[in-house]
């Protein structure tokens, strides 16, 4: 039984994961501990936590594995600069000191970082490096319930690869086909994220959320789509793409796109961060979303064709595009689809550890064909009653301690039904970008004003952003046209017709701001403009406490779903500790906080109206 530590860091979303005998023991992102969103530093805290959870020291590990190969990445960098020279000199001069000072000597950086974690004998450490897309592929395939599957990984860029198709059989993975830098679906999507005034590497979700505000049949949207496909990207039948580098600047420059050329192409300048969103922005977001979906579908078709497999597993940042994932499901290219919930670079740490366990050490793999290895993605730290009590003393909080959990769920369900917003903190923290009911903010999806309230008064974020529902798995089809389970909130599906409401006759002529607050269904706060919803199915066997709460809500209201959004404010990493949760609760208009069996009512807390006292500074993302 091999104990392996996987690490991802130095780019964005640092993380660590430990596997023991092919089982995932623990996984966590560094940002949750340092409270710096997308923290790229060495994941000292995450490693410390993973070791503690596994009951191991560094010397007990059979291998430590880094999630990509720095020298291969350096080769790509130099070859790219060489190919584009003399363009890119400024970028070269900025990049080289970092590489020559740190990244080229990654082994030393890792050894130095491990020193901060704890004592170790360097001679006992086996330090390995896995290729970036192999780490993604392994995170999807080995964590999946399938014995055999086609593997599709798509992201911005790893070393050279930006997308890959592979096949997984038992404990082996073979990569069959790769798409190489600078031609990248992830970077194409990020270029539009940038042009529309959102931040690269974090604003892609916002672009995806903005797309449904676009008019699908408007001549402008159709024109944008034609321009993208005619000028920026050539899409081949096998899903590979070719990006015209005359329009992009990321390969050698300090920006994603050539501003002047894009302004000429689309007829408006790049949107600046925080400025008003207009209809043409929404139309462009919709156009690139549709083009991305077309590429992903073609890649999936190719994966099916060359592997002949019936199961598909996916990872890489683009696999977090749940709208594209929803289309993949509906197109039925594969019988089953599994997507790694930590599909971004944080999941690379986990994938690297799994790859070493099964491919390097050739350990046997067993799966029951039904359950995945992610255990609901609840792989992070949890806090004992003693630690919650210590927080209560430190914060001088006022609480009610429930000894009967049914009474707690019944009380909270009643408060949710009457319009309260609840911070829900239970058990182990989620691994990956989604809060799945252990570090979540919950509210009633039937309330038509809840989207506005949550966005503006709780999360302090853009009003257009949609919210997702958590629904009891057994009741999913009552509300949504979604057959398979979606425990990780990675599939978008339509709200069923019987829940929809009739729209005004002039709906399509309304501005996006007017359409935003049009009541579209009897669960309006989780129904996006195009009647879609990003669904989390809640299963009793993976999260019984969350299931119990939604079930209690169902008993009282007849509706077995709630709004679930991550427990944080804009720019803040999802809360990790009880104190993080209490601080976030006190700094917003949240009404109730639940930590384990403790319930905190806002109006009972000392100095509760003084929100500013609790507000923390976070860089807006």
């Amino acid at each position, binding site marked *: 039984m091999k104990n392996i530590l996987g690490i991802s860091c130095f780019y964005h979303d640092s993380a660590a994961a430990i596997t023991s005998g092919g089982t995932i023991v623990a996984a966590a992102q560094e940002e949750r501990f340092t409270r710096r969103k997308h923290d790229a530093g060495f994941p000292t805290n995450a490693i410390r936590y993973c070791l503690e959870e596994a009951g191991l020291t560094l010397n007990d590990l059979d291998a430590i594995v880094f999630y990509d190969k720095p020298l291969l990445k350096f080769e790509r960098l130099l070859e790219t600069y060489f190919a584009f020279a003399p363009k890119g000199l400024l970028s070269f001069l900025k990049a080289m*000191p970092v590489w020559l000072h740190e990244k080229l000597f990654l082994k030393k950086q890792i050894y130095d970082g491990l020193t901060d974690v704890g004592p170790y004998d360097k001679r006992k450490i086996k330090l390995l490096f896995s290729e970036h897309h192999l780490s993604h592929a392994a995170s999807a395939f080995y964590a999946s319930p399938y014995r055999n599957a086609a593997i599709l990984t798509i992201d911005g860029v790893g070393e050279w690869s930006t997308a890959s198709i592979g096949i997984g059989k038992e404990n082996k993975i073979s990569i069959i086909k790769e798409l190489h830098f600078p031609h990248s679906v992830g970077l194409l999507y990020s270029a539009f994220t940038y042009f529309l005034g959102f931040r690269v590497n974090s604003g892609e979700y916002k672009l995806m959320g903005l797309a449904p505000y676009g008019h699908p049949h408007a001549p402008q949207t159709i024109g944008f789509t034609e321009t993208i496909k005619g000028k920026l990207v050539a899409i081949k039948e096998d899903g590979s793409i070719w990006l015209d580098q005359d329009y992009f600047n990321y390969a050698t420059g300090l920006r994603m796109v050539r501003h002047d050329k894009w302004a000429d192409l689309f007829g408006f300048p790049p949107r600046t961060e925080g400025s008003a969103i207009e209809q043409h922005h929404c139309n462009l977001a919709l156009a690139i979303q549709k083009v991305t979906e077309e590429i992903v579908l073609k890649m999936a078709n190719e994966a099916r064709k060359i592997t002949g497999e019936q199961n598909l597993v996916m990872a890489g940042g683009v696999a977090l595009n749940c709208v594209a994932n929803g289309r993949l499901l509906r197109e039925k290219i594969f019988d089953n689809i599994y997507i790694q919930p930590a599909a971004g670079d944080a999941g690379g740490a986990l994938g690297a550890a799994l790859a070493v366990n099964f491919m390097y050490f050739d350990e046997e793999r067993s799966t029951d064909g039904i359950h995945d290895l992610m255990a609901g993605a609840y792989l992070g730290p949890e806090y004992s009653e003693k630690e919650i009590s210590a927080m209560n003393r430190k914060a001088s909080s006022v609480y009610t301690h429930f000894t009967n959990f049914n009474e707690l769920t019944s009380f909270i369900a009643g408060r949710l039904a009457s319009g309260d917003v609840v911070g829900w903190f239970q058990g182990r923290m989620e691994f990956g970008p989604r809060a799945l009911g252990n570090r979540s903010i919950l509210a009633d999806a039937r309330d038509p004003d809840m989207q506005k309230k949550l966005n503006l008064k709780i999360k302090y974020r853009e009003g257009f952003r949609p919210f997702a529902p958590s629904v009891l798995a057994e009741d999913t089809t009552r509300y949504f046209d979604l057959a398979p389970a979606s425990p990780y909130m990675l599939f978008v599906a339509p709200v069923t017709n019987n829940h929809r409401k009739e729209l005004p006759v002039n709906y399509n002529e309304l501005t996006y701001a007017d359409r935003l607050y049009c009541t579209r269904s009897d669960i309006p706060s989780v129904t996006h403009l195009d009647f879609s919803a990003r669904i989390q199915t809640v299963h009793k066997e993976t999260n019984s406490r969350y299931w119990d709460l939604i079930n209690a809500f169902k008993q009282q209201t007849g509706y077995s779903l709630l709004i679930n959004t991550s427990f944080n404010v804009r720019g803040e990493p999802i809360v990790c500790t009880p104190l993080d949760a209490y601080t976030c609760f006190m700094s917003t208009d949240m009404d109730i906080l639940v930590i384990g069996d403790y319930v905190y009512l806002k109006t009972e807390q000392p100095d509760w109206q003084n929100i500013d006292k609790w507000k923390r500074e976070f860089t807006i993302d």
Partner: protein
Amino acid sequence: MDSIKDIWLFIINRKKYWLAPVIAVLLLLGILIIFGGSSAIAPFIYTLF
């Protein structure tokens, strides 16, 4: 030294021999930059460029 050895092995493994002089010059410059941060070598760097 471990890292230099790794880089050399990488170049041989990938058969990217043209990278060897490029990396050598970059490493040399890197050393100058590191020293240049706080020593009298700094002006020397400017004449190099």
